């Protein structure tokens, strides 16, 4: 027991003396959780809660352009800045100089074009129904086009979202015009309001239902996603501290010296694993505390901890063991500290990227989704998501435990055989 105590104490002292390693293991996850959660939350709010600043230049000679601007204003989604004096040619430069990200240009023939199209639709309908209509020839105006300007730094999906919103309001205007024109051609223009109201106002709604187990009270949000994801990322970053410790001990002869002593190498390895599993648990406690108590004070969603505490502890433990085992293997195979640090850190970033820490795996191409199965971070994340987002049970965690178990055994065997090859064990 005294040997084990001395060995644990030594590992703890080495850890405390490794200031860079401690900063990477404890400050990095806090910063990552803090920064990424704020960024993602503000992006979410920008689309769903905040008004989007929109520069509008309405050159329409008719009423429909004004109606569109009115609808966009009333929607509450946009903060409209109407600048009708700006010519279309200078709109690009105006957009950039005014610091606006998006602008909408309504052309002069906007109303005329829409009315002409509505007249065509009405004519077809009247003819098909065999009804009499006004046969006075009208001037044809081609269907107008709105111009949507966006700053080049704006993400494509954001632009598409805004264009979809504008498109849906255009449908309202076009349908309204068509109904008006048809009723006017039938000489019952004053009765169009009822149909318009029915068609435009009473549309199919969509209920959003999150697919999670009934016992879960967690609401998917940036906190629920980011706190577990970046905690796992930080756990695996212990490779920089633990991996380089092992390389040092291998290179400076400490391990060989131990071989001449009446002790077993198991004590050394067990102490390392025990200390770093505790480190991982502390990382989890720290980041989760931040999610529960600090993020809500900053106006961010609160982290909701799963009800199944035992399963949560089991997922934390197996994730920690996976991180520790990977760090041991890197430490056993690296020839220098620089190799352990460089390869270890880069491999974690790659594992994180393909494992869904940086972007969700479901948006990746098929072959990348296949490769994500080889990332231990993917399975750790899956374990946390099963509990934190889906309210899953032990049964839902079986695959996670199986894959992480295989990974741990693989890393431990790799470490064992490499150290044995070097005659350290």
């Amino acid at each position, binding site marked *: 027991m005294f040997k084990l105590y001395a*060995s644990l104490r*030594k590992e703890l002292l080495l850890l405390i*003396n490794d200031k860079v390693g401690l900063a990477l293991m404890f400050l990095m996850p806090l910063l990552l959780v803090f920064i990424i959660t704020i960024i993602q939350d503000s992006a979410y709010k920008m689309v769903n809660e905040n008004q989007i600043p929109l520069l509008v230049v309405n050159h329409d000679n008719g009423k429909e352009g004004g109606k569109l601007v009115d609808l966009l204003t009333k929607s509450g989604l946009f903060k409209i800045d109407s600048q009708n004096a700006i010519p279309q040619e200078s709109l690009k430069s105006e957009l950039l100089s005014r610091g606006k990200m998006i602008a909408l240009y309504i052309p002069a023939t906007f109303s005329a074009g829409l009315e002409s199209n509505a007249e065509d639709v009405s004519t077809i309908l009247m003819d098909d129904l065999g009804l009499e209509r006004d046969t006075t020839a009208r001037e044809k105006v081609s269907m107008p086009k709105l111009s949507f300007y966006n700053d080049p730094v704006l993400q494509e999906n954001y632009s598409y979202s805004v264009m979809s919103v504008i498109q849906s309001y255009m449908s309202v205007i076009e349908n309204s015009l068509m109904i008006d024109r048809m009723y006017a051609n039938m000489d019952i223009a004053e009765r169009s309001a009822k149909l318009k109201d029915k068609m435009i106002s009473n549309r199919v709604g969509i209920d959003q239902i999150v697919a999670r187990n009934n016992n879960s009270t967690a609401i998917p949000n940036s906190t629920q996603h980011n706190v577990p994801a970046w905690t796992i990322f930080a756990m695996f970053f212990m490779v920089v501290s633990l991996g380089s410790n092992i390389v040092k001990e291998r290179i400076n*002869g400490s391990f*060989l010296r131990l071989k*001449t002593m*009446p002790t077993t190498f198991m004590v050394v390895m067990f102490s390392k694993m025990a200390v770093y599993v505790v480190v991982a648990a502390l990382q989890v406690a720290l980041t989760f505390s931040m999610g529960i108590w600090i993020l809500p004070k900053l106006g961010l969603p609160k982290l909701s901890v799963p009800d199944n505490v035992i399963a949560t502890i089991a997922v934390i433990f197996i994730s920690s063991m996976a991180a520790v085992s990977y760090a041991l293997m890197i430490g056993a195979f690296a020839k220098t500290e620089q190799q352990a640090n460089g390869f270890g850190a880069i491999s974690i970033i790659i594992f994180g990227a393909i494992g869904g820490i940086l972007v969700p795996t479901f948006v990746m191409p098929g072959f990348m989704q296949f490769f994500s199965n080889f990332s231990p971070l993917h399975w750790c994340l899956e374990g946390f998501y099963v509990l934190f987002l889906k309210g899953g049970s032990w049964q839902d965690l079986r695959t996670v435990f199986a894959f992480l178990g295989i990974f741990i055994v693989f890393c431990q065997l790799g470490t064992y055989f490499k150290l044995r090859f070097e005659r350290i064990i």
Partner: protein
Amino acid sequence: MAGQVCIEIRDVYKRYKSAQEDSLSQVSLSIMQSDVFGLLGPNGAGKTTLISILCGIIPVSTGDVQFFYNGKPYSDRERKSRIGFVPQEYAFYQELTPRQNLDYFGAMYNLPPQKLEARREHLLEVLGLEKAADKKIGTFSGGMKRRVNLAIGIIHEPDILFLDEPTVGVDVQSRNAIIRYLQQVNQAGTTIVYTSHHMSEAEEFCKNIALIDHGKVIAAGGLQHLKSVHHAGSLQTLFINLTGEEYRD
């Protein structure tokens, strides 16, 4: 008990994997209890390989090594408790203090806490490390690091002490302190097996030597006897006479 064999090395061969030649070939030596035995030879002669075999770090390819204490053979388990090893490298934790290192390695030698504390304080004092006992070793001079390296190897008062170039790269004062302390340790009954490139130091320190070259023992016996047989005024002359003057890189 002087006069009894302590280490018996019989027909030891060692060839590393993928090596073309034997690192050790037909090495047979007897080292007596309480002796200070010098394993001397040029670079690459096989000294470190032989010490590594004696300490149990690497196995022999063929041959046999046996340890005795007062005529009784050691078991493998006993051997690990009764030998001390001071490698050429600074094989300890430079991020920790001498006191923390001694605590750790002492515990690995199964020393009970009270005895460990007493030995630790004794060694820190006699090796002049008391004032720096709670400072991180990374900031120490080469001489201080050598003394910490030595202290770790003898914390458990071994019967046999293996020293692989224990004074390399240190100043005269540290070398003097190390050798003086090793002589005291030897007088207390510890058998010392030592390698060095410092011929004057070895001449002053060793009673018996073995000269190894190209993995073979080319001369072994009492230092004075070998000098007289080979008509050499000093150990350095004896060394050059037997191993030649060409570079060994």
